[in-house]
């Protein structure tokens, strides 16, 4: 497996170079995982992209580098300590680095000779392909798709120049993934929603969720989806609720700040029993926090957000496969139980690209609720055994459909009766009992004869998996892990079963207080023995978890 960093200031073209490189490497058959580390600014600062690639599954990023493409001196200063002994730093000859691993190429000069200073990125692409033993032809097609026609020829020339300027360094590794998808978390989530019949999406721009709205908007005409940029997040969620009430599959998405504004309406969906999916792509908080970075600190907030009590479900996305299938499932469950379903993603997952098996659209198709029979007086909130009442769509039958945010009777009319209140509350909460029967247990992996059990949720799955594998390989003990996708209501079967076998329980989370550990203690009475927590806005890596377990826990 190889790991490459492309770094520079915002506006220097890191993204374009990284995009062309990851696409070319995928063509060569590699599994790929990329991470964007971007500051919240349009020019200057320090940004970088990581591209990790290999012939086997790449689950997450790593901070051990085989190569650095440095577009400025700062990149070299900041990252040279992460570079392996036999790694390289590729940069323009004008940069001042005197690190012995530096390979200087006259990229700027060459670009000027070719006739456009902007082609220096393609020179770097050519050089990197050579360094990793790849064929130059690989990138030709990719360039065609990513560069405007009139610049294509000069970019191809630039790539060839770069290719000739360096010697090969690493051998090509055989992979087999050319037919897989390379997709980021927000794109995967959007595709999943469309596969499940999404017709309306309302949102207000907020990093790192905005690219969901952008991707859906780019497909809206073709797919027949209305994408509406709301005036604020309160409008966004109330729109999604209104459209869902009127009978189309609807979703809204935001990050923690916007979710905070949506909270009252989340309760409306719960009270009025209107299917709703809300995506929270987490970033570090509180307040504005770190707009372009990652954290898992909204868990306790979303499981309890809004006044009062009502049934809800929270699904955490662990990877790019989950992002697709679980979003489709969320829309189906929201419809089946007439509840709000919250999807927790985060910046790490939403912006990172991964190679995944093509999705099976059939497994993501919409499952629509059976249309209720129309007999006698229609009762929107009829008391039923499982708590799910017959839901008609206004205007689609001759019946009148009334929903209410006030406590209401079976017809949907406002009431203050204590008897009705209790019956209605019980009816709503009963839906959870049925939902609990179809929860998905956390993913278990590692040594079956484990002594130490790690727990985690969401996008730390990849890093935790890598850590468990490497700890077991090192022979420093026997490790396994449980990583939650469905997280509220908390599935407890496998957790209790595995906990009974564990000598030690370690909670791994991307936040400062250990929110999953709290949830587990609250729901099961079981406490974790220690926490590995990270809250600097940068995703924990497998190596970091391994190191910290050995240092902080294993001692």
């Amino acid at each position, binding site marked *: 497996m190889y790991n490459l960093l492309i770094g520079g200031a915002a506006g220097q073209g890191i993204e374009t170079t990284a995009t062309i490189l990851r696409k070319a490497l995928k063509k060569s058959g590699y599994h790929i995982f990329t991470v964007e580390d971007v500051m919240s600014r349009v020019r200057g600062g320090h940004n970088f992209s990581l591209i990790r690639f290999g012939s086997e599954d790449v689950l997450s990023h790593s901070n051990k580098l085989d190569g650095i493409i440095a577009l400025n001196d700062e990149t070299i200063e900041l990252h040279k300590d992460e570079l392996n002994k036999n790694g390289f730093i590729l940069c323009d000859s004008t940069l001042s680095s005197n690190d012995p691993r530096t390979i200087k190429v006259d990229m700027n000069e060459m670009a000027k000779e070719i006739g456009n200073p902007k082609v220096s990125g393609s020179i770097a692409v050519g050089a990197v392909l050579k360094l990793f033993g790849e064929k130059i032809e690989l990138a030709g097609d990719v360039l065609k798709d990513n560069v405007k026609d009139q610049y294509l020829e000069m970019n191809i020339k630039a790539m060839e120049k770069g290719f000739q300027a360096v010697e090969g360094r690493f051998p090509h590794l055989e992979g087999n993934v050319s037919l897989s998808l390379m997709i980021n978390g927000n794109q995967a989530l959007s595709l999943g929603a469309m596969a499940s019949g999404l017709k*309306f999406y309302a949102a207000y721009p907020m990093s790192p969720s905005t690219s969901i709205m952008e991707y859906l908007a780019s497909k809206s005409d073709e797919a027949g989806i209305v994408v509406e940029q709301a005036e604020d997040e309160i409008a966004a969620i109330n729109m999604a609720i209104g459209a869902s009430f009127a009978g189309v599959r609807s979703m809204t998405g935001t990050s923690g700040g916007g979710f905070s504004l949506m909270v009252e309406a989340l309760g409306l969906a719960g009270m009025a029993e209107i299917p709703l999916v809300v995506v929270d792509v987490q970033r570090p908080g509180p307040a504005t926090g770190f707009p372009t970075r990652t954290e898992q600190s909204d868990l306790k907030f979303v499981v309890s957000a809004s006044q009062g009590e009502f049934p809800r479900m929270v699904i955490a996305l662990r990877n790019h496969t989950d992002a697709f299938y679980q979003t489709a499932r969320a829309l189906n469950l929201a419809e089946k139980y007439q509840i709000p379903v919250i999807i927790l993603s985060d910046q790490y997952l939403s912006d990172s690209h991964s190679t995944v098996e093509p999705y099976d659209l059939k497994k993501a198709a919409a499952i629509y609720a059976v249309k209720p029979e129309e007999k006698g007086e229609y009762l929107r909130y009829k008391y039923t055994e499982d708590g799910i009442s017959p839901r008609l769509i206004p205007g689609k039958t001759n019946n009148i459909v009334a929903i209410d945010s006030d406590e209401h009777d079976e017809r949907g009319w406002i009431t203050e009766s204590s008897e009705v209140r209790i019956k209605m509350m019980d009816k709503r909460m009963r839906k959870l009992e049925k939902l609990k029967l179809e929860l998905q247990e956390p993913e278990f992996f590692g040594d079956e004869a484990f002594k130490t059990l790690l727990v985690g949720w969401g996008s730390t799955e990849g890093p935790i998996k890598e850590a468990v594998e490497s700890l077991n390989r090192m022979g420093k003990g026997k490790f396994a892990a449980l990583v939650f996708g469905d997280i509220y209501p908390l599935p407890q079967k496998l957790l209790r079963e595995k906990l009974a076998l564990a000598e030690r329980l370690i909670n791994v989370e991307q936040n400062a207080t250990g929110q999953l550990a709290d949830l587990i203690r609250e729901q099961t009475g079981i406490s974790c023995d220690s926490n590995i927590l990270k809250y600097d806005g940068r995703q924990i890596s497998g190596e970091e978890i391994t190191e910290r377990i050995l240092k902080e826990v294993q001692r």
Partner: protein
Amino acid sequence: MSTNTFSTYETAWCPGCGNFSIIDCLKTALDELNLDPHEVLMVGGIGQAAKTPQYINANAFCGLHGRSLPAAVASKIANEKLTVIVDTGDGDSYGEGGNHFIHNIRRNVNITHFVHDNQIYGLTKGQASPTSGEGFVTGVQVNGNINTPLNPMLISIAAGAGFVARAYCGNKEHLISVMKQAIEYNGYAIVDILQPCVSFNKVNTYAYYSQRVYELDDSYQPFDKVAAMQKAMEFGDRIPIGVIYQEPKPSYHQKNTVLKSGKPLIDRPDDSSIVNKFMEEFI
């Protein structure tokens, strides 16, 4: 009254409240427009006025305080065959929901917005609303309201609304006629309905309005924006009622590229082949 299919229930309003005539007029307007209850969606927020959807035999969405407009426009986006009417209070519309008010004028979704403007918060027992007059004394504004009252007609015209009208619940025939025009207008139509709150507003009473309100007649043409703004500012010793501004404009459904081509959103089937095509773009 009894033949009207929109009639239903007992209300929880104070005797003498202006809301009674408003709901009567609304039922008559809907009936006269030959609409069926199941074709109509009434949307309200929270407040005394916002209870109107509860008291009419039609589909009802009784949502959150201030949030009726976003829910209403999205319902209309989902199913354009529904006649969507927001019926709610001045606090709900202009205070808590002020941001939605401005931006839904810009969207111009084909819905109707009836504001029961009693210049007070009725349900919470009498605090100043955005339209309360200067000096208006309440349990909160104990030394009199010091804020400039908001002029909903002027704001609506300025923000680009295509149908802006004022009516008075004490003139039912006129109110019914304005309501019908508003419902039939293609686009966002707002009617600010002057409504005495007999329990908490001792200033803007029936007597107060009867002395001031006058009907706009044919000598006033509501098609000139500047003249309409001037008319909208007339709110003192004399208060004009009627259509203050009207302009044909393309509605949201006529502008939105998805909606203008084809069936109502709700009647469109899922198409997995198109999603498959999107997926292949990632190979």
